[in-house]
């Protein structure tokens, strides 16, 4: 059975995951280990008048109680946002200070104020409760719109009126003019709900300072351990980069929330140095709700103009993005360059203008969450299209078709140059698989059972790979976004792939090994994928933005090219043949058209014995490569959702969900389908169930699964998933990426289906039963009045 590109190879890593044998950060236990417990603010906004640690310090087993003044006194730097976004007037963003332990002011409920290090988790918690903090409570604001209003409490002195930046993209005057001259204008207010990321494994850190070696080791739940090391050393001055090893072992889901460097990792490293003990912290679930960076939270008003032939002539967008109490690592990029650059959707629109105001509120920081900006763009664009179709009296699918981009490359008015795609092919496939044409009969049949049936369509596009380093650098990124790899061929012919990508559920240990099988015909079992350890892998930018295939694997391919070239040189020398005649297949190295053959292992051994190498060749067979993409990649697709709503209770049942995606080349279809299934589950979660809710005092009401609704198996349908492939011209394998598509494409499909079912377009996410029922009631009252 083939284990190469396109094969459904079972996931190597699942044996340890399914048998409970994974090795996660919390599984790490060191000699003399202590535990950290954080004292967190119960208030959304308050000044710290005093902190009395004496009672906590007196508790048996407590090694130390530390506050923010000690932290900053030791020179530990503030947490920063790594992407500089300027306002449209050219002024830099107004970033407030974020100390890992608050010094004078707390800005959200959950903000860390002090830490206790003790010999057991229970003693640490008990001591944390004994720390007495005297607060002067200030008024607070959680709503992004209200945050900008006059008279609202100022959250950071650096950000007057709580405004972080007022940014724009595209041509405002031309867009306004186009809309003014339009035959029809669709206007909407669209809210993208705030969600909690909820990886199954909560965040965790185990920090160890070795005083005799003057060296730090940090095990942590990271999607990008090298970036963590860079930031911890260069910006937070916790430890010098060459004396800090960061290991992200098995990580149980990230979804963006584990990209960032949080206060807890910083404090554990610092506290390990202070106490000379290994320090462990593992978040409990309520801490995760309070402190893991939330996602989305946009308020948008938009206008879309159409000419008399239903062609879109202009799209004007005004968004307020809630970044929470502090600017997290990529928080500025998510609602700007990852969002507004996708406002052209799959459509040929000459004029697009997006304005984004990012604001502080007294809430958990907001940053990238699966899709990161692109779900917000897709939801807006696709809700607009379906709403416009209703107003124009045309089929929503036909309105989309009339505006599809059909020629590539295509330069949009908002930076992106789409390189490939066939949007009609995706739509054709989805319409066929969903029997779109037969929907009205199904609607009638459902009505006879008292159910309201609706169908919703969504055509998403995303920019992935993230991204050409020079491009993101010109847009304000503080880092380059290439990837690196090293391919080590051992003397016996087995292969180790060292990658800067990080697998936290994606199955890299399987898919990356498939590249070796495809190239050399070696069994996947002869390949080991090494990742997640800064001492083993030289450098890497990590995994997010659906980049590990398009960027991470491209680096591996570049290294493989070098390995193959050297192996061929050695074989040609040994076989006394021309280098150009050497082929490597099925684990053999042959001279084409002859019976001259060497085993792969013989060539590898030859490289290491170095008894008979070509003149001047260095021994060994190990090559590294860096790959910097030339462009973003553009996965796209068409999703069609069909729902039945129970008008008596407002309950939505998804009765059919069809996804037709274009991910470019697919390495392992089984894993890709799994990614789509999981992505849709998260998208359906956002559309129907999930929302982080604060009360008027800034308390998070959804602090446990008693109130935060995660999608369960019985909330979700069986999906119909297929692919229409156009190969990505931008990277050697032709990969576009698949990790986020499901979460990007599904929310608008679900909401468009429900609004179609109930005949009321005024519906926000999550479309909970109570909200849907109220929308039905509103429609019925309106109809009764007419």
């Amino acid at each position: 059975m083939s284990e190469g590109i396109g094969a459904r190879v079972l996931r190597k890593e699942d044996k340890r995951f399914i048998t409970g044998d994974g090795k996660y950060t919390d599984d790490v236990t060191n000699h003399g280990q202590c535990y950290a417990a954080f004292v967190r603010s119960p208030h959304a906004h308050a000044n710290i008048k005093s902190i009395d640690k004496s009672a906590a310090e007196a508790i048996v087993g407590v090694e130390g109680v530390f506050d923010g003044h000690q932290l900053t006194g030791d020179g530990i730097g503030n947490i920063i946002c790594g992407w500089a976004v300027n306002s449209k007037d050219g002024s830099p963003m107004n970033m407030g200070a974020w100390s890992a332990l608050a010094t004078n002011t707390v800005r959200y409920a959950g903000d860390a104020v002090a830490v206790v290090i003790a010999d057991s988790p229970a003693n640490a918690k008990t001591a944390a409760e004994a720390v007495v903090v005297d607060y002067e409570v200030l008024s607070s604001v959680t709503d992004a719109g209200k945050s900008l209003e006059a008279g609202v409490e100022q959250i950071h002195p650096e950000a007057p009126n709580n405004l972080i930046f007022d940014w724009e993209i595209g041509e405002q005057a031309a867009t306004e003019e186009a809309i003014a001259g339009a035959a029809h204008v669709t206007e909407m207010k669209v809210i993208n709900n705030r969600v909690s990321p909820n990886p199954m494994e909560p965040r965790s850190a185990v920090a160890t300072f070795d005083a005799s070696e003057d060296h730090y080791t940090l095990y942590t739940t990271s999607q990008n351990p090298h970036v963590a090391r860079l930031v911890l050393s260069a910006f937070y001055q916790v430890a010098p980069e060459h004396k800090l090893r960061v290991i992200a072992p098995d990580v149980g889901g990230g979804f963006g929330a584990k990209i960032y460097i949080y206060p807890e990792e910083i404090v554990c490293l610092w506290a390990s140095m202070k106490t000379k003990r290994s320090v462990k912290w593992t978040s409990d679930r309520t801490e995760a709700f309070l402190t893991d960076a939330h996602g989305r939270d946009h308020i948008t008003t938009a206008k879309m103009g159409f000419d008399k032939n239903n062609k879109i002539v202009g799209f004007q967008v005004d968004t307020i993005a809630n970044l929470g109490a502090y600017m997290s690592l990529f928080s500025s990029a998510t609602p700007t360059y990852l969002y507004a650059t996708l406002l052209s959707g799959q459509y040929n629109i000459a004029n697009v203008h997006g304005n984004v105001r990012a604001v502080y509120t007294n809430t958990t920081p907001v940053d990238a969450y699966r899709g990161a900006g692109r779900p917000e763009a897709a939801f807006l664009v696709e809700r607009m299209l379906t709403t416009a179709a209703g107003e124009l009296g045309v089929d929503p699918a036909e309105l989309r078709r009339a505006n599809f981009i059909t020629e590539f490359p295509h330069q949009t008015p908002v930076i992106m140059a789409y390189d490939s795609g066939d949007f009609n092919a995706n739509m054709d496939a989805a319409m066929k698989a969903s029997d779109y044409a037969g929907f009205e009969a199904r609607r009638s049949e459902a009505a006879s059972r008292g159910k309201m049936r609706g169908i919703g369509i969504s055509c998403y596009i995303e920019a992935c790979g993230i991204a050409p380093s020079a491009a993101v650098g010109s847009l304000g990124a503080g880092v380059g976004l290439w990837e690196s790899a090293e391919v080590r061929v051992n003397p016996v012919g087995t292969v180790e792939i060292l990658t800067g990508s990080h697998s936290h559920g994606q199955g890299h240990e399987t898919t990356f090994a498939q590249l070796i099988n495809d190239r050399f015909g070696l069994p996947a079992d002869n390949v080991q994928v090494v990742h997640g350890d800064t001492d083993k892998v030289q450098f890497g930018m990590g995994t997010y933005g659906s980049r590990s295939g398009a960027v991470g694997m491209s680096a591996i391919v570049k290294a493989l090219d070098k390995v193959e070239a050297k192996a061929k040189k050695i074989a040609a020398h040994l076989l006394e043949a021309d280098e150009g005649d050497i082929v490597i297949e099925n684990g053999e190295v042959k001279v084409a058209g002859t019976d001259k053959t060497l085993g792969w292992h013989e060539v590898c051994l030859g490289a290491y014995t170095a008894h008979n190498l070509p003149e001047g060749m260095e021994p060994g067979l190990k090559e590294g490569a860096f790959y910097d993409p030339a462009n973003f990649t553009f996965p796209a697709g068409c999703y069609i959702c069909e729902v039945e709503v129970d008008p008596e209770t407002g309950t939505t049942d998804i009765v059919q969900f069809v996804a037709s995606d274009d991910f470019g080349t697919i390495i392992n279809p089984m894993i890709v389908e799994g990614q789509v299934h999981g992505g849709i589950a998260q998208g359906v979660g956002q559309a129907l169930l999930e929302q982080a809710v604060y009360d008027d005092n800034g308390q998070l009401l959804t602090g446990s699964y008693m109130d935060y609704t995660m999608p369960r198996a019985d909330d979700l349908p069986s999906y119909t998933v297929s692919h229409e492939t156009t190969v990505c011209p931008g990277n050697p394998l032709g990969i576009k990426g698949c990790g986020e598509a499901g979460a990007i494409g599904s929310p608008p499909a679900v909401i468009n289906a429900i609004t179609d079912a109930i005949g009321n377009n005024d519906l926000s996410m999550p479309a909970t039963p109570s909200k849907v029922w109220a929308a039905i009631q509103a429609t019925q009252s309106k109809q009764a009045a007419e």
Partner: protein
Amino acid sequence: MYNTNYHRASSVEDAVSKMGSSDDAKFVSGGQTLIPTMKQRLAAPSDLIDLRHVDSMKGITVDGNQITIGAGVTHAEVHSSKELGAACPSIAALAGHIGDPHVRNMGTIGGSIANNDPAADYPAAMIALNATIITNKREIAADGFFTGMFETALGEDEIITAVSFITPVKAAYSKFPNPASRYAMAGVFVAQTGEGVRVGVTGAGADGVHRHTEMEAALTANWTPEAIANCNVDANELLSDLHGDNNYRANLVKVMAKRAVEMAG
């Protein structure tokens, strides 16, 4: 969790005696509410007195039309009991929709009733079935037992040992689960008992479980789902929270009542 002292009671008398000699003890049975609350440090009893090994609190008895369920019987046992399935399938079905299999295999009917969570299922069944709550001290009619949210008529050292009721002529429970917790947002138990029609409502009331006398009258006159249609459910007496306001809950109470009558046949 804070430190606590664990005691295994061998009998009801032993449990009461252990309670008397403890500082701030709590009885624990399945622990499906108390233990998570302790883990979150929201409850800190000095002592836990475990009732799960008290034999006299176990077992289900169907004696003619008299049904008795020991307080220590788990939800899974109620759900899977053949005797109950034949004599009172409505309560067996109710138990099968409490929590998840883990909860059903640990949680007990006595624990659920004693806790009187305003969104728990059993209290609605108890008042609709006109059940008697039997304690180590007395017998209490369900109507007088549930006195408010998380409040009951139980005294400090009083232990529910069993519940008993007469087999209803017809009965059914319909529940609309909270999307997150899957507790009842509105659960309605309807029953035709020897002493008339009774309707128990859980999950929705601002003061916890309660009877709906207007529906009882309507169903007494006309035992059909349609009879519910003209009943008034006063939203002012119902809960509002982030999952739904009181108007939505008022609607749910009517819809669940209607569906319960349909199920009861």
